[in-house]
């Protein structure tokens, strides 16, 4: 456990030494995502007072929350460091360490969350002054705590879902397309593009059963007080169940992959 936190600490220090371009990119990305969402919401609400159980400001608050939650949950997903280790043959040195490779990488991902948390703090500071607490939203210390718990599970679930995809690098020359494909599906079915309450009612049981909701929309619903304690508990149980499934799949893929790993790199 000490090793886990040491690795996380090293990664956090490394990430906080980022230069101005990292923070500029982050700010522009946040501004653009929110800008597009703002105008979509404005266009949708031009003829309606409530949609999917949200008022106009309520839906805007949902988008602010989900954009920031997604940053914390995804962490370093698009850096495909694991696939890169396999391509370059850098995995060899990790295989000699007396600790699991997956745990090492997860520790690094936890460390990489520090700039994401700083972004959440900075980019959400304006929200209480501009949006306040819209009608139908219940934001309390209890809902914030529920959200924090859900985000921790969501981060682990996201890591465990993308881990076996990156391990495809044992067989394929390039797996970034698969990671992007996962991202596209997760954005749609996880509620980043649109609140899931706008989806047709027949699709709701499916959305609740799939893992994507628990990565993004579920922590936000918890934060905005849209979940009862029973719904929260069952959601967390489903998310943990998916973590278990993804961990088993990862272990199986890892076993098969390392059997044919040659360590020569590209």
């Amino acid at each position: 456990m000490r090793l886990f936190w040491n690795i996380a600490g090293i990664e956090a220090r490394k990430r906080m030494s980022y230069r101005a371009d990292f923070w500029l990119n982050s700010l522009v990305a946040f501004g653009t995502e929110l800008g597009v969402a703002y105008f979509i919401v404005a266009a949708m609400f031009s003829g309606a007072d409530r949609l999917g159980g949200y008022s106009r400001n309520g839906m805007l608050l949902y988008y602010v929350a989900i954009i920031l939650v997604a940053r914390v949950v995804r962490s370093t997903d698009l850096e495909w460091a694991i696939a890169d280790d396999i391509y370059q043959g850098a995995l060899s040195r990790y295989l000699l360490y007396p600790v699991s490779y997956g745990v090492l990488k997860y520790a690094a991902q936890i460390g990489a969350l520090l700039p994401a948390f700083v972004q959440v703090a900075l980019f959400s500071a304006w929200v209480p002054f501009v949006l306040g607490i819209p009608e139908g939203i219940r934001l309390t210390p209890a809902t914030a705590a529920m959200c924090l718990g859900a985000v921790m599970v969501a981060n682990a679930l996201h890591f465990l879902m993308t881990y076996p995809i990156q391990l495809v690098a044992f067989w394929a020359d390039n797996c970034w397309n698969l990671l992007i494909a996962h991202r596209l599906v997760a954005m749609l079915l996880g509620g980043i593009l649109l609140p899931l309450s706008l989806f047709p009612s027949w699709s709701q049981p499916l959305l609740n059963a799939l893992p994507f909701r628990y990565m993004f929309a579920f922590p936000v619903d918890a934060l905005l007080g849209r979940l009862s304690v029973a719904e929260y508990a069952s959601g967390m149980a489903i998310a943990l169940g998916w973590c278990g499934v993804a961990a088993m799949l990862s272990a199986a893929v890892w076993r098969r992959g390392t059997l044919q790993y040659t360590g020569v790199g590209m």
Partner: protein
Amino acid sequence: MIRYLRLYGYFLRFSFSRAMEFRFDFFFRIFMDTLWYGHHLVFFWILYRHTSLLGGWTVDQMFVFAGGVFFADAIQMTMVANNLWMLPNYVNKGDLDYYLVRPVSSLFFLSLRDFAANSFVNLLMAIGLFTWALARFPGPLGGGAVAAYVGLLLLGCLLHYCLQMIFTIPVFWLHSSGGLREIFWSLDRYTSRPHGIFTGWVRKLLVSLLPFALIVSFPTAALFGGLTWRLVAHLAGVTAAAFLLMVWIWSRGLRAYSSASS
């Protein structure tokens, strides 16, 4: 001109033979782009379950717009994406020398050398979806209007390329991993949304200094609202300005390039 066409023919032949060597990647990319198309269509389909108009367009018009977005994206992914992805690496590692000593335009060579053969399948798919969206449109769309639409879309593709280059070329000075590419990809989200939903200064910005709304949304507006000389002049003028700016920044960048590991 003939020499450049012949050279491009060689690029195509080489790219297809290389793509068939990496078969997994070939299919993964097709899979990814297919999901991207589905993700867009489902997004608009769900939006229109809750509203009849978005930015002044009906769902049928929005599907035509989405078809245009797919077409423009497929052109970009097939013809220039791989090349522009590698450009910062060449600059940072000093590998640009190889391209600069060739007896052809370095901008041409670096922008078009790698034709993404796997994305070519997606280009065919995008054309299919684009045709489907036009065919299912309930109103009358004349052949001339559709031809003008495709012409304006191709102009939009050129503008998209120029913008991407303008955001990538600063790598000559910044020596970062991608210049201002991340910012470009963030702003590029505006390309896939109709400009009618934007208002105020954001809309003005998106049709002038950051002309992402001109790439697909303007040509689609011309298809439904009627082609006007003002609209064509606007799109052509902004594209020409972006092209000249790109060429100017490129020449300045080459002057700043100091070869190996600069």
